[in-house]
């Protein structure tokens, strides 16, 4: 009995073969391709520069920004420490107010629950509010396989869906597309769109409005995510801009909300912290245009059938790492993406996961197990801009280093050592004896033959090319410290 309970309670990573947490290739390989795409780099450079300036301006006008960040950080840590209690409380409150709560161990289970609910409602299509959780679990693909059409209603998600593309940013999944690419996608894929459509952003937004209007008015089932869920009251919150969220959360009879278990917050007043931190960090606005807050079912107002699905899918595995668990504090604002010099150049697709950028580099490998996203903790220069921008003060650089260590440790358990482990063992052997160290220095001087022109070595033969493929090596100095020290000592200089 106890043994079974322990077995059942093992925190488990997200399963393979479903969802969008793993890429087809490593970050360095994908990044190299992305870097060759000049249009992509121009689009990303323009968009991230714009949003960085907007964010800086609206954050600068809040006198207590740092105090809000500290409160946000502590609130999230306190939530994780009592996550089980808070989820049970949330379930009680939602149920007491007419909602139904479901629990899903992983992506497959969540997808099955949604599909069953849609079928029970007698629908063959759903309208969707942009949601990272449903992207993560591959819900659209699962619904399609079950004969249910899923309509993305967020403008950027619509651009991605119509373009048969993948999201590349947490907030603006189509950030890699510029206005004329978007016009081309609309002209090609949007039924009934005017062939005169220009690439004026307002015209493009109006085309999306016209395209989705009838869907909203006739939809019977909507699927959403959630930004926050208040345990004490059972209140759910969706923060958005366009009104597509309000449409989905208000007009259909049935509402299905898929929420990661880490999104719960203890009390109503805690929202006063997050509703200040999120919009300014995210779109660089003082407040986003629309925030919807609902509790269970309100007779005569909005969906009369409400289902909340609480999703694990690897989150408990993240929680199991006492250092790594702060990745669960993320409120999905995407400020860390916008300030990251690596993200700005490679874009989101190179990360392979639906969570790109600095936060993705610490979250995805923990959700899947480090070995399935082993290159991501290295996809950073550790410059620290992400930590400064993070509204809940997630120490992303330290977590990256922590995950690199975890990766090395896990690899060390394998029978065949990695080239890096061999190199480190060799270095340790050389450094352990003064004579060997002296000899090693002699070898280093050979390196001076290389890199004479630029004072830097940019290419070495295999296996050392693994290092120089993405980094320069400084040309070794003419004289080692030990040699210099010896001359200095014998010369008797002061």
């Amino acid at each position, binding site marked *: 009995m106890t043994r079974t309970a*322990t077995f*059942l*309670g*093992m*925190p488990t990573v997200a399963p393979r073969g479903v969802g969008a947490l793993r890429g087809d290739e490593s970050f360095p390989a994908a990044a190299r391709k992305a870097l060759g795409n000049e249009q992509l780099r121009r*689009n990303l450079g323009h*968009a991230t520069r*714009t*949003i960085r300036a*907007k964010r800086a301006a609206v954050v600068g006008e809040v006198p*207590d920004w740092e105090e809000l960040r*500290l*409160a946000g950080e502590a609130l999230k840590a306190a939530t*994780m*420490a*009592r*996550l*089980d209690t808070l*989820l049970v409380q949330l379930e009680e409150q939602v149920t007491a107010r007419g909602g139904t709560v*479901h*629990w*899903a*161990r992983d992506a497959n*289970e969540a997808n099955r629950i949604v599909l069953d609910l849609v079928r029970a409602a007698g629908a063959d299509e759903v309208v969707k509010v942009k949601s990272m959780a449903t992207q993560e679990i591959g819900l659209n693909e699962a619904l399609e396989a079950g004969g249910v059409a899923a309509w993305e209603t967020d*403008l*950027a998600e619509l651009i991605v869906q119509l373009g048969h593309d993948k999201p590349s940013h947490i907030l*603006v999944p189509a950030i890699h597309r510029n206005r004329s690419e978007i016009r081309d996608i609309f002209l090609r894929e949007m039924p009934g769109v005017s062939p005169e459509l220009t690439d004026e*952003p307002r015209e*493009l937004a*109006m085309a999306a409005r016209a395209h989705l209007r009838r869907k*909203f*008015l*006739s939809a019977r089932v909507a699927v959403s995510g959630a930004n926050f869920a208040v345990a004490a009251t059972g209140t759910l919150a969706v923060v958005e801009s*366009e*009104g*597509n969220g*309000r449409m989905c959360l*208000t*007009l259909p009879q049935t509402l299905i909300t898929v929420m990661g278990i880490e999104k719960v917050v203890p009390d*109503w007043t805690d929202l*006063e912290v997050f*509703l*200040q931190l999120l*919009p300014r960090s995210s*779109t660089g606005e*003082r*407040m986003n*245009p*629309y*925030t*919807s*807050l*609902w*509790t269970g079912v*309100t007779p005569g*107002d*909005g969906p009369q059938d409400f289902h909340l699905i609480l999703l*694990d899918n690897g989150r408990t595995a993240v*929680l199991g790492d*006492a250092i790594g668990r702060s990745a669960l504090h993320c409120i999905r604002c995407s400020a860390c993406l916008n300030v990251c010099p690596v993200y700005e150049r490679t874009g989101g697709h190179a990360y392979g996961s639906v969570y790109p950028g600095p936060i993705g580099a610490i979250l995805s490998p923990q959700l899947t197990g480090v070995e399935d996203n082993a290159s991501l903790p290295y996809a950073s220069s550790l410059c620290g801009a992400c930590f400064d921008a993070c509204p809940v003060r997630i120490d992303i650089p330290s977590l990256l280093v922590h995950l690199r260590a975890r990766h090395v440790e896990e690899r060390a358990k394998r029978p065949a050592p990695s080239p890096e482990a061999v190199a480190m063992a060799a270095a340790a052997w050389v450094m352990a004896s003064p004579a060997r160290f002296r000899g090693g220095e002699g070898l280093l001087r050979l390196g001076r033959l290389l890199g004479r022109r630029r004072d830097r070595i940019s290419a070495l033969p295999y296996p050392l090319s693994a290092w120089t493929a993405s980094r320069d090596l400084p040309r070794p100095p003419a004289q080692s410290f030990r040699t210099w020290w010896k001359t200095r000592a014998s010369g008797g200089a002061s």
Partner: protein
Amino acid sequence: MSDARATVLARIRSALGSAPVVPDIPRDYRRTGELPPGDPALLEQLVDRLLDYKATVVRTSPDRLAADLVRTLRETMPEGGRLLVPPALPAAWSVPGTAVVDDGTLDATALDDFAGVLTACAAAVAETGTIALDGGPDQGRRAITLVPDRHFCVVRADQVVQTVPDLLHRLTPTSPLTLISGPSATSDIELNRVEGVHGPRTLVVLVLS
């Protein structure tokens, strides 16, 4: 299903180990504004923020409200456009007799035939330019302020607070709540803000003081 519940809860407990530390929350941020609700400086700030979001603002007074309403509706509504109102607007507003009172039976398609909706609000935040609706009888169910393309909203001076924490203290969490900051907008094309997508494309705020 109960299996999944037990499993997820057991996983969480095993991940946290025994006696996880619950940190204290440092609440050194501003939990309330320095200015009282309705302070003239707050009204100025609210108007400034609303204009920044491309909302239309009309400053009015109890004496002028009826006349300002008629004029604003005439200027903003299309010829022959029908106006919807929630079940119980204050009588003093002298709402035009042609307005249709929502009785809760209109479906989404029927709501789409209205050119505009006129409501009160529950509260507003000056610093962020945010208006809160809580489904009260002078605001109506959520759908009526969503589907019609023009939203006229009257904000009374005493409803205007300074900060977001001030706002949340005033609201009842379990009511169906909508926080509105300007007309619907998107930043999805090159991260430039464009006003007017799925929600009402025109937001007219009448500030009553």
